[in-house]
């Protein structure tokens, strides 16, 4: 028996076994397909899951970004609302966004220009009762705490040197670092309730030194010596009231 005769014989037996399909099979299948819509046309389940996760991430990212932008252009740039706080500040946000700015600050996008914030119902004098510094991944942090509420005005003035004018002496002092930011707090008192250091030699990646350069006639000034031109973000937190400044590394 040759291969071809084997094929012919086996096919004859298969033909006898199967016969031909009924003429109605095609219409029957078509009707079944029409009645049964596909449960899923497209990629497998795991791909759909990955796509859903990516879409969710994008949505979350957009929401976070819009939230950060809202903070930056809102009442106080970088202010994080607190359930226990009321909107007690108004601002003239003239901070210029940095080309290097990235939304990694806990208070939102970093700014590299001047900016200011003011409170709507400030105390006659906001008493500083604690000053702290710290460093974290991506930013150095300065916290100035007040015992009785938010001061009336706060100004942030970056500068290209680490030299500041000490007031009221009128004496120039140079901090560690190459650049600086002058923080001016109006309607504040830095000596009645605060007895801690007035010069922090931090030597952090960006914040090299921080020194109080004025505490006179209701104005407190802190100078920051920075390693590079400083971009920063800030926020007021409550319970207790504190000004938190994040300096981008």
């Amino acid at each position, binding site marked *: *028996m040759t*291969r071809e005769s*084997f*094929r012919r*014989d*086996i*096919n004859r*037996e*298969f033909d*006898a*076994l*199967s*016969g*031909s*399909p*009924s003429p109605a*099979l*095609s219409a*029957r*299948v*078509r009707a*079944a*397909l*029409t009645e*049964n*819509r*596909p*449960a*899923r*046309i*497209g*990629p*497998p389940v795991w791909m759909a899951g990955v796509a859903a996760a990516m879409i969710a991430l994008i949505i979350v990212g957009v929401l976070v970004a819009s939230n950060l932008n809202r903070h930056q252009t809102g009442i106080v740039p970088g202010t994080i609302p607190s359930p226990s706080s009321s909107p007690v500040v108004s601002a003239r946000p003239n901070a210029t966004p940095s080309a290097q700015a990235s939304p990694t600050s806990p208070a939102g996008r970093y700014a590299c220009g001047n900016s200011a914030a003011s409170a709507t119902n400030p105390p006659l004098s906001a008493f500083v009762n604690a000053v702290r510094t710290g460093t974290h991944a991506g930013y150095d942090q300065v916290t100035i705490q007040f015992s009785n509420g938010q001061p009336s005005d706060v100004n942030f003035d970056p500068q290209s040197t680490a030299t500041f004018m000490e007031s009221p002496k009128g004496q120039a002092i140079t901090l560690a670092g190459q650049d600086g930011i002058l923080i001016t707090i109006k309607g504040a008192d830095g000596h009645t309730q605060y007895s801690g250091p007035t010069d922090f030699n931090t030597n952090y990646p960006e914040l090299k030194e921080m020194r109080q350069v004025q505490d006179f006639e209701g104005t407190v000034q802190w100078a920051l010596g920075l390693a590079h031109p400083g971009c920063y973000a800030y926020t007021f937190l409550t319970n207790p009231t504190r000004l938190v400044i994040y300096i981008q590394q």
Partner: protein
Amino acid sequence: MSAVTEQRPTAMQRATQGDADAFAMVLDPLLNPAYRLAAVMLSDRMAAEDAVQEAAVKAWRNLGQLRGDESSLRAWFLSIVANECRMTRRRRWWSVVKLADVEPDRGRAGLSQEATTDLRRAIARLSPDERLPLVLYFYLDLPLDEVARTLRVSPAAAKSRIYRAAQRLRSDLTLEEVS
């Protein structure tokens, strides 16, 4: 001067977009081989048509799992048909056990009456999974690589399965004859 040719979506493209009529059109040429495959595996023509219909619906529901282009459709669909035949046999075994007194297995009874030749008896002794590679290779005349894709094995393994099944029908068959 350039000619702008309108690109009309193929039936397969429309099928993947959810067009049932388009999918029926694509599937239509495959119904005959699918039926023959099922009829040989099940030895029951009515059950074969049911299996083909059910396989078509499953293919429609899972069209997104089709790997490759339209040329892969035949092997993919026949593999679904073969799997549906296996499931049908399992269900039928269960119904035969339950209903043996009132509904004997007509396919097997009919087959035994018709099994007059040695070859026919030998085919009847093959299991459905042994018949499958023979149907694909000899009866449907698929190339070896497509047989392999339908069986979801390598071409070498497909050739081996064809050879082993054919040898049970013809003991003097050589491997070279299956190529």
